[in-house]
């Protein structure tokens, strides 16, 4: 009897202690919550959401169901659920360009999330611009996307190459400050007989080509005195896509295509990375993935020799107001926030908003997102100061020098004073489709750069009228962080 009592007491005590431990483990307790998260088909982004979801489950006892859709299906799935008002998703992950179409159906981020060290750690270009729409913080960046420059250290520091370059161009072979220097370097290293070409960029229609053009164009059109005027006149919504700055950018982009491997007109970003990692090119531009892939000995022939820097700039920018080229004493850098990085948000229709925002906060916390950023295949690039300041975190991937340059390029780009934002506008695909077609024709030599861009401008103006010029102006100004008019 005594032993039975002892056993019973022990069992009860353990059971109470156990339940106490379970309660303590669920902090906050979302044990009755299952979140449905919409994401594009993995591994990119979806794997980061799942990986964090597993950890969030351990912490809060809530469950996360990541529903994956192919890229082409993601937008219609989200937009139809939001506009119909159905409670299909608790969290949506999406491209920043879609924000204008989703904004009315998203809930605002809780004020508690918008303060503290973790909040301040997010780079201002995301925190104050890409996550904000019409003065409200409607989404949280879970990925950073900015174009940077990649080059081969071994070629750039070879004394013979340096001497030959200086003899030919009259200045030192170094990281290019301007796009002119970038094309000189590309020309210098174009040696088809040695299976080496100058550069690789995406030129394929439907293969992210227009973001690469934008990176060139930003240097000539993102005038510091006229913020937000790269794509449209923010006052009239007149398309700027055929102004002399754009024409110069496109001419340069076409010139670059001839200094790239022979098949480059069929390159999307994947092929750019393959060309860089395969040691086929001396330099390149693109997203942060290029540096990570090129530094990985399993995927790359140039591991240990991968340098990174901010995109080249220009000391001449076109002023659309005066219709003149303005000269600057120093090079103006306009790193381009291509795509802008995946956003996460909570639809207003979700009945589990608290849990959903808590999940987002967890996914994007410095520790969890930092791990995702250095995990291959997550598609997460740096967007927090802590992502680029923690060298130890990146030492698994890079040599010290590579890490310093890579993180320095990322940090300098997103912190640049004259950073250029990507276009975010309702009907985004309609605008970019005509651009892709005309770009493709110009690259193939079927039309001149000016003809191509004139056609694009005409179509952009027609689309703006069709969608409502005033409505589009309001959206464009909001996207560019300009005050409403």
């Amino acid at each position: 009897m005594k032993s039975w009592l002892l056993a019973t007491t022990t069992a009860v005590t353990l059971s109470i202690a156990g339940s106490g431990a379970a309660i303590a483990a669920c902090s906050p307790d979302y044990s009755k919550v299952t979140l449905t998260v919409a994401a594009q088909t993995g591994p990119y982004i979806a794997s980061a959401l799942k990986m964090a979801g597993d950890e969030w489950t351990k912490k809060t006892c809530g469950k996360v169901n990541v529903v994956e859709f192919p890229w082409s299906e993601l937008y219609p799935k989200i937009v139809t659920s939001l506009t119909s008002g159905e409670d299909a998703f608790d969290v949506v992950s999406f491209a920043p360009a879609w924000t204008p179409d989703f904004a009315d159906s998203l809930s605002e981020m809780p004020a508690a999330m918008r303060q503290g060290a973790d909040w301040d750690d997010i780079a201002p270009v995301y925190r104050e611009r890409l996550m904000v729409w019409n003065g409200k913080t409607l989404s949280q960046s879970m990925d950073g996307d900015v174009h940077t420059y990649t080059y081969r250290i071994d070629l750039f520091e070879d004394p013979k190459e340096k001497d030959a370059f200086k003899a030919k161009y009259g200045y030192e072979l170094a990281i290019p400050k301007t796009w002119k220097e970038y094309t000189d370097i590309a020309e210098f290293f174009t040696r088809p007989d040695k299976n080496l070409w100058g550069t690789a960029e995406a030129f394929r229609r439907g293969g992210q080509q227009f973001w690469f053009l934008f990176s060139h164009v930003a240097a000539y059109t993102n005038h510091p005195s006229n913020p937000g005027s790269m794509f449209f006149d923010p006052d009239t919504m007149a398309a700027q896509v055929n102004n002399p700055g754009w024409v110069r950018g496109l001419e340069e982009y076409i010139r670059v295509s001839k200094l790239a491997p022979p098949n480059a007109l069929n390159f999307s970003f994947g092929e750019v990375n393959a060309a860089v990692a395969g040691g086929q090119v001396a330099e390149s531009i693109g997203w942060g993935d290029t540096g990570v892939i090129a530094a990985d000995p399993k995927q790359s022939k140039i591991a240990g020799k991968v340098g990174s820097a901010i995109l080249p700039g220009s000391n001449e920018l076109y002023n659309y107001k005066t219709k003149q080229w303005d000269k600057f004493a120093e090079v103006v850098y306009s790193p381009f926030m291509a795509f802008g990085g995946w956003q996460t948000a909570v639809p207003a229709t979700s009945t589990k908003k608290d849990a959903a925002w808590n999940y987002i906060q967890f996914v994007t916390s410095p520790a969890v997102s930092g791990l995702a950023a250095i995990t291959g295949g997550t598609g997460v690039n740096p967007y927090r100061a802590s992502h680029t300041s923690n060298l130890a975190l990146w030492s698994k991937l890079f040599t010290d020098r590579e890490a310093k340059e890579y993180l320095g390029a990322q940090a300098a780009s997103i912190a640049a004073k004259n950073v250029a934002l990507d276009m975010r506008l309702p009907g985004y695909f309609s605008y970019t489709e005509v651009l892709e077609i005309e770009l493709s024709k110009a690259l193939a030599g079927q039309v001149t750069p000016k003809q191509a861009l004139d056609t694009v401008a005409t179509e952009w103006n027609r689309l703006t009228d069709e969608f409502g010029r005033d409505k589009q102006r309001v959206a464009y100004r909001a996207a560019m962080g300009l005050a409403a008019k």
Partner: protein
Amino acid sequence: MRNDPIKYFFIWPALLVVLGVSIFPLIYSLTTSFMSFRLVPPTPSRFVGIDNYTSLLQNPRFWNAIGTTSLIAFLSVALQYVIGFTMALALNARVPGEKLFRVGFLLPMLIAPVAVALIARQMFNPTMGPLNHLMTRLGFPNLPYLTETPWALGAIIAVEVWQWTPFVVLMLLAGLQTLPHDVYEAADIENATPWQQFWGITFPMMLPVSVAVVFVRIIESYKIIDTVFVMTGGGPGVSTETLTLFAYQEGFKKFNLGYTSALSFLFLIVITVIGVVYLAILKPYLEKYR
């Protein structure tokens, strides 16, 4: 059989299901084609009559897509038929190793078109592709297979021929194996040459099968999208853009649903016209050899 009206009562549910599944989407799509209906940016739908149709008929991109699709369809099917017939005749002649050839020839047809297109894209790669490696070894320059219009169209047609000739072989071989032997024996007695036997016996007797095979292949070729999407994305410009790829761009990138529905119906009309004309032209020959 009892003429009990109750049987109609039991048939109705099945009929309604069939109508619902097959006819409703068509009617819905036809109705949408007369509307201005955009998901991006979300705009309320409104009736626009035949505006979508007139806009499409005035759009040079639509006519370009028809031209490109027709070129790919007719050229590739013609080549598939000629090569397919030749291969079917060879296999029917019971050459040594015929069974192995038969399996080998059928393999391309069994691979998913996306995979075929990806393989082709690599084959035609100017720097890493085996085709240009061979050209370089033979002293020729690297060719822009996928980035210049004539080469890109040629590459797409070549891939179509490679993948779908086996289907033609399969159907024609089945037809050849049903031809009566006594006709050939009679021709042999008359000292008819193989060439005369082919044009006088084989080809006319195979005409019904040939008409059906070519018809199926033309209809299928008009629907081409995956190969083009993967190999060229419709470029350079829109020079290799086919009708279905154009519809995909309008429907799934711009979400211009009214316009895309009108495009689908015009596509249906184009296919129907081609089918009717094709059968009308061949009808006298079919009746002659019946």
